[in-house]
């Protein structure tokens, strides 16, 4: 690491610590119009007293700063990233190259239709292909992420009940979610104004159908389910579950976080789902960007289509033209500005076009093969509950025994993996498995990578029993040592403040 990226106390410098008063980076366009800037032309009440306090850096300072930061960050391009339920597969470079074309990047969202025919065709084809893959009738590409899609799905459920049985719609106030569900499911249900009711998992790791029967009734608005579930297990009773929910007048919502296991093999519509969300940044390979942007898509059966947000794209075959069609009168409304994360949608379109249906089916088959292979190899060193049948794209191992014998937690094993050149699996989720390590290898990882990961995890477990302190203080070979989360929450420092802090939390810089 270059000396300029190493602060005096060994910490990586902050942008603000690199700042030199008066230094300039990139010069923006200079205008030559014969109108001068004069702050006096702004009403006094609207003038900013001082320019905002931003760092003053050269372009190279900025390049070094962020290049150095990138070297302190782990991504799929560097190595294995088996974060469960996140589907950290390879993000194809050609999709990035396509998305970088000015023909997409330099399009204003409010351009006339005739000037954006290529972009409209992408949206039209993506909706068509995602409907084909889910068995649904129509889709909206608007939601910005899975959680926003969930919110929309729940609003559709509410709209459906209000439309078909207005007298009793208010009574349908409950959304059922399994105890193994992603946290976004109950949070989205609450955001949509619903009560959350939890259905238990049975001893096979699946929805307890008997318990579900007890829970449903005229108060049930719907059930949110991911299939395969977060244990990586296919909900074998899905048809019965669908019957129970539908018989009670509820709707069945498919959380598509785990679609990678079954894409091209089973369609949510055929399982009885009414509404599906898809995370394009998972199954459809768009990069996760350090926490987004993703894209959610909501696809629905015909009766729910009138409630979708708009606009959507339609094709006029007679004129060979694509055009916008505004939402209908029953729409639940808009979820965001403009149309959706077009750049993400475009990459997903490219991915689907490159693989086709057969290629996508191979994706699912290989993802499942990889997960089962890892699981089988790890069974010697870690407990793997529910291993009486194949898992799908992911599995959950438990470090319960390690914890009982050494006091170490799953998180300590995770830190040990970081020292061995691997990102860790998802830790401490799902909540129904003690000391959970939720592992999703994805289909793009090679046999050599999987073997090396299994070796590393075996070493770490061995270390837990022989030198537990080594793990308690791990990682030792990461850019920083174990970070103190308790301190971070006890003494909140959520932003940089100038030193000395006499200028206060809303400090301003010098007058320009």
């Amino acid at each position, binding site marked *: 690491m270059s000396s300029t990226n190493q602060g005096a106390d060994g910490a990586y410098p902050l942008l603000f610590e690199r700042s030199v008063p008066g230094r300039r980076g990139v010069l923006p366009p200079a205008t030559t119009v014969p109108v001068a800037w004069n702050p006096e032309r702004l009403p006094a009440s609207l003038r900013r007293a001082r320019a905002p306090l931003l760092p003053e850096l050269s372009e190279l300072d900025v390049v070094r700063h962020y290049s150095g930061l990138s070297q302190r960050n782990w991504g799929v*391009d560097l190595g294995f990233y088996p974060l469960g339920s996140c589907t950290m597969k390879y993000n194809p470079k050609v999709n990035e190259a396509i998305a970088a074309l000015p023909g997409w990047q330099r399009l204003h969202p409010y351009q006339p239709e005739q000037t954006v025919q*290529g972009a409209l065709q992408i949206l039209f084809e993506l909706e068509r292909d995602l409907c084909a893959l889910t068995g649904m009738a129509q889709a909206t590409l608007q939601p910005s992420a899975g*959680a926003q899609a969930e919110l929309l799905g729940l609003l559709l459920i509410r709209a459906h009940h209000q439309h078909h049985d207005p007298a009793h719609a208010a009574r349908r106030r409950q959304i059922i979610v399994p105890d193994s569900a992603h946290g976004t499911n109950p949070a989205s249900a*609450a955001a949509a104004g619903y009560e959350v009711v939890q259905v238990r998992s049975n001893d096979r790791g699946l929805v307890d159908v008997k318990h579900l029967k007890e829970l449903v009734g005229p108060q049930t608005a719907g059930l949110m389910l991911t299939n395969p579930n977060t244990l990586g297990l296919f909900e074998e009773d899905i048809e019965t579950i669908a019957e129970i929910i539908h018989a009670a007048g509820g709707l069945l919502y498919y959380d598509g976080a785990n679609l990678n296991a079954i894409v091209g093999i089973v369609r949510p519509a055929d399982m009885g789902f009414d509404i599906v969300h898809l995370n394009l940044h998972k199954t459809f390979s768009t990069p*996760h960007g350090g926490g987004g942007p993703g894209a959610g898509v909501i696809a629905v059966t015909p009766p729910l289509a009138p409630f979708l947000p708009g606009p959507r794209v339609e094709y006029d075959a007679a004129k060979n033209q694509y055009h916008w069609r505004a939402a209908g009168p029953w729409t639940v409304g808009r979820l*965001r500005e403009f149309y959706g994360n077009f750049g*993400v949608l475009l990459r997903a379109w490219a991915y689907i076009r490159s693989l086709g249906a057969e290629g996508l089916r191979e994706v699912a088959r290989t993802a499942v093969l990889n997960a089962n292979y890892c699981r089988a190899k790890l069974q010697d060193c870690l407990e793997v509950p529910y291993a009486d049948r194949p898992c799908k794209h992911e599995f959950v191992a438990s470090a319960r025994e390690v914890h009982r014998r050494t006091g170490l937690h799953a998180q300590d094993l995770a830190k040990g993996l970081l020292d061995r050149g691997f990102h860790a699996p998802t830790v401490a989720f799902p909540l129904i498995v003690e000391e959970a390590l939720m592992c999703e290898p994805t289909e793009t990882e090679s*046999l050599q990578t999987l073997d090396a990961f299994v070796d590393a995890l075996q070493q770490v477990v061995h270390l837990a029993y022989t030198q537990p302190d080594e793990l308690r203080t791990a990682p030792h070979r990461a850019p920083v040592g174990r970070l103190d989360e308790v301190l971070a929450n006890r003494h909140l420092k959520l932003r940089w403040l100038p030193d000395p802090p006499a200028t206060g939390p809303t400090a301003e810089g010098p007058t320009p």
Partner: protein
Amino acid sequence: MSYLPHTASERERMLAALGCREIDELFTDIPPRLRCPQDLGLPPPLRENELWQLARSLADRNQDLDHLCCFRGAGAYDRFIPAAVAALANRAEFLTAYTPYQAEVSQGELQAMWEYQSLICNLTGLDVANSSMYDGASALAEAVLLATGVTGRTTVLVSEALHPEYRQVVETYGAARGVTVETLPAEQGCTRSRETASLTERKQPAAVVLQSPNFFGILEEDTRAIGEFAHAHGGLLILVVDPISLAIVASPGELGADLAVGSGQGLGSPLAFGGPYFGFLAARQEFLRRLPGRIVGETVDSQGRRGFVLALQTREQHIRREKATSNICTNHALGALAAAVYLSLLGPAGLTEVATACWRNAHYLAERLGRLRGVELLFPSAPFFQEFVLRLPGRNPEEVDQAFLRQGFLGPLPLSRLLSDPKWQDTYLVCATESRTREEIDRFIQVTQEMVA
């Protein structure tokens, strides 16, 4: 095309390790009757060269802003983006990472987000910021929900001059939670404190929502007074702002706002037909624990060195489930990272130059257009930043669009596209950012003149 690594013999070895002969044996838990047909009607797979050709040919069916000179804004702006922004933000270690759950190997992302939070606080003059929302509109909706939670009230008062799509998103998010959205009327394009006084008293809103510069480009002059009314009646002031304008315009903190939100598109995100961009959300300290989304905090590592982690996670859905402050999980971190790079490259002097160039270009354009016979400036006395509204009496929007397109311009936005009230029928929202040159502006004036002649 395929991104799958296994050779046939590797696959055999893996299956052998599982005691299987076929991958299908791993799918026996799926009832055969649920299996879908082989042919799903998807187009056939393409090799990389074929995909590239197809994508290029479709991109060529668009007329992008390298071929059209843009005088359209309305929430998405044709801004200069330094080359270094994409070069740094798209580095693979950032691009192909996820939410920094393992902090020790995610220090790059975490520090960049912590610095981003600091930059947003400095820009908005507020105390705390989260590490991004999806977009400006949903950031506003979350801010409104926060206000209803804080105050225990269900009505919000929203300026008529708010971007209509923002308003629609607030309504969508609010409807589910029983929030009523009431309109604060605008007069001559501005929201006035006189109106607000009586309405806040009658409606007792959880918050008053103003946008400045507003949808019509106007800088709201009564913001401070309106905030005082809101506060006097126990409500909050939420401001929607353009981050570029904040280089020269009083910050939300200075104006008395409790929460500030906006679209970060102008800070280094390409237009990309509407997204992905990101939204920012900043607040006064007292609302910290009610903020939605990820927040990064500073801490130390085992050697006492500075480091960064996700803080206050007990607000979030993965811990709190249905009691979380929001359902947001994945945010728009990459856009926020691009914004931090953009602001670092420009610095205070550069950002001020961008803002003043917008102001100068737009004011030059407005002055010249205002002199043309057949062109009417709709709100001639209101202070504005980079956009203003024209009336072109007797012209229909389709004609105007086409006339500009023929001359190589993406002309002003016909307001009738977004606003249904007939009073907007022949009005147009014009925008001139720092990207426009004097020559382009002069040519645009000439084309307008010829059109109205």
